């Protein structure tokens, strides 16, 4: 697919409306790449003038910071800020709540001031402005539950926007026992994604997936590539692969619209 980079745009003397920050998972993880592509399809459908950094993008530093390595985090942050500022970036969208949180909350005091939105926020505003429309389509009537990513929900108080999007698909949105501000983590945050869990009697993602399974939904929707990995593993661990799918909201919308 044709995805313009900031460098190409600049060479043509153009400044895109928004920068799509893809993130490491969205760039390299096979599962997350599908989310990236689904989101790009939505951006194109809505005619959003966007670009990516491509090979000039580097880790936001979130996992390093949460692992306690403030040096590495700030090195990453300042390098990224130099790149972003050199392109005079004003607005950033990302499909990763970890990048979203870090860029939005932790970059400003290091000199990186941008309007940062999560992809669900951008999609919602595209719908509200009439630049995009969704019809129920493919998922009409299905039971869907939404798993709140911690870095979108509790960390940044965004609970309703992803739910509004799911409801637009004319599906039955079923809440898990622990949802919204009480939502249970998938187990990946705080750099846990990159290590084995500490000694315990259960894996967090299994605990969470069991809760999702209890809603009897055929789809677990989420808005984070790491939650997606954890919940997908959880679905396998609970032998529900045949009946339950884990999908990002961007994928739900792109699929429903046959993009």
């Amino acid at each position: 697919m044709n995805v313009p980079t900031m460098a190409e745009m600049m060479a043509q003397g153009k400044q895109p409306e928004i920068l799509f920050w893809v993130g490491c998972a969205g760039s390299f993880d096979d599962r997350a790449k599908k989310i990236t592509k689904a989101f790009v399809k939505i951006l194109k459908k809505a005619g959003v003038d966007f670009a990516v950094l491509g090979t000039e993008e580097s880790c936001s530093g979130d996992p390093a910071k949460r692992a306690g390595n403030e040096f590495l985090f700030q090195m990453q942050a300042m390098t990224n800020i130099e790149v972003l500022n050199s392109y005079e970036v004003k607005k950033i969208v990302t499909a990763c709540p970890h990048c979203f949180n870090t860029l939005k909350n932790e970059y400003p005091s290091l000199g990186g001031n941008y309007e940062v939105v999560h992809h669900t926020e951008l999609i919602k505003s595209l719908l509200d402005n009439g630049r995009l429309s969704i019809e129920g389509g493919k998922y009409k009537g299905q039971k869907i539950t939404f798993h709140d990513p911690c870095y979108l929900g509790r960390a940044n108080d965004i609970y309703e926007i992803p739910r509004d999007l799911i409801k637009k698909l004319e599906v039955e949105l079923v809440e898990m026992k622990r949802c919204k501000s009480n939502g249970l983590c998938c187990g990946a945050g705080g750099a846990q994604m990159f290590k084995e869990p500490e000694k315990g009697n259960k894996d967090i993602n299994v605990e969470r997936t069991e809760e999702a399974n209890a809603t009897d939904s055929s789809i677990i929707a989420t808005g984070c590539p790491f939650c997606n990995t954890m919940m997908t593993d959880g679905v396998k661990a609970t032998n529900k692969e045949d009946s339950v799918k884990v999908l990002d909201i961007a994928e739900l919308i792109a699929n429903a619209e046959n993009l």
Partner: protein
Amino acid sequence: MTYIDNIAFAILLFLGIGFFVKNIQKLIRNIKLGKEVNRLDNSSARWKNMAMIALGQSKMVKRPIAGILHIIVYIGFIIINIEVIEIIIDGLFGTHRVLSFLGSFYNFLIGSFEVLALLVLVSVTVFWIRRMILKIPRFWNKEMKGFPKNDALYILYFEMVLMSLFLIMNATDVPFQQKNFGNPISQFLVPLFQNFEVNTLFYIERTAWWLHIAGILIFLNYLYYSKHLHILLAFPNTYFANLNAKGQLSNLESVTNEVKMMMDPNIDPFAAAPEGSENDVPEKFGASDVQDLNWVQLLNAYTCTECGRCTSSCPANITGKELSPRAIMMKTRDRLEEVGENISKNGSFVDDGKQLLNDYIKPEEIWACTSCNACVEECPVNIDPLSIIMDMRRYLVMEQSAAPQELNSMMTNIENNGAPWQYNQMDRLNWKDE
């Protein structure tokens, strides 16, 4: 000789309040051992937090049963304490029910205190049942053994005894009962005492009165040693709580300076250190002991009432890991107390070969956290256990290079190729053509 009661009361009051003030001074001294952090900005948002969360108990009712019962005890506690004003005046000046000149309004007040006293008794009994009969799991985690468990029970027993004494005192006050107004509860206790001599009743009433005020003073002084300090500290704790988005971690300024130097091409790498800075001790990164934490984190530790809502919602704890956010707060307070005693004994802190990390909090607990903020969200008084966990990770990684092996690989990958996995940065855009 007739003044002996008044003098005894004055001494009791003086000692009771005196010891309390001394302990509060110690508390403030200990909290000030923490590092500076500015929490004086945005005072309107802070007052609002305090009004809503501490005064208005808005986060308590997220769990409705415990929340509503707690509000009853809380209102009872505050309102019934108006009665203490009268007790103090009576005690000091030898009067009896000095405020009764207020007439029927007085009886109305006492009547409402009695109703509240009964409601408090009922609520506290339900609390006891929840702890001891229903054994709600969050009261039985492993950090709740020994003193923490007993502490909770002592508080409940104290409240039961104080409320009972208040009602007995009213029931045996013959002139008060004769008026038969303002005694909606105590009148039902009167039959228990109907075969007693008037004289005996007088002594029972006096005994209940003395025990009631002595009990209140003892309770006041028990606070410093107990989780019950929250009744005072919930207010400053909600006022000084973090106002930023929960996901936002602080950026260490000392690191910013070094990173800026590293990235500045104009800096002279061979420049001598500025004059007079040869003996400066470089700032320690992160926290290994209570003095490395900031004062709000230490205030948090004293404020924690060990309700365990944090731990019961912690994904790590739910799945059997060592981490319990409540235990993080309890251990921080225990260590702070130990450091405080050390200072009281020696004049200033003398190294005792111990620290918060390892001797109290194990790295295994620190590494089990997913930074999901459930504990912070749950805390009814805005305590932030996550900030302590993160500060200790910073110490482990930046001072000790003691991260788990897999995390070291992740960080090496970020350093080398700008992603937590081993992929070439030049392949970052390959997805578009796949």
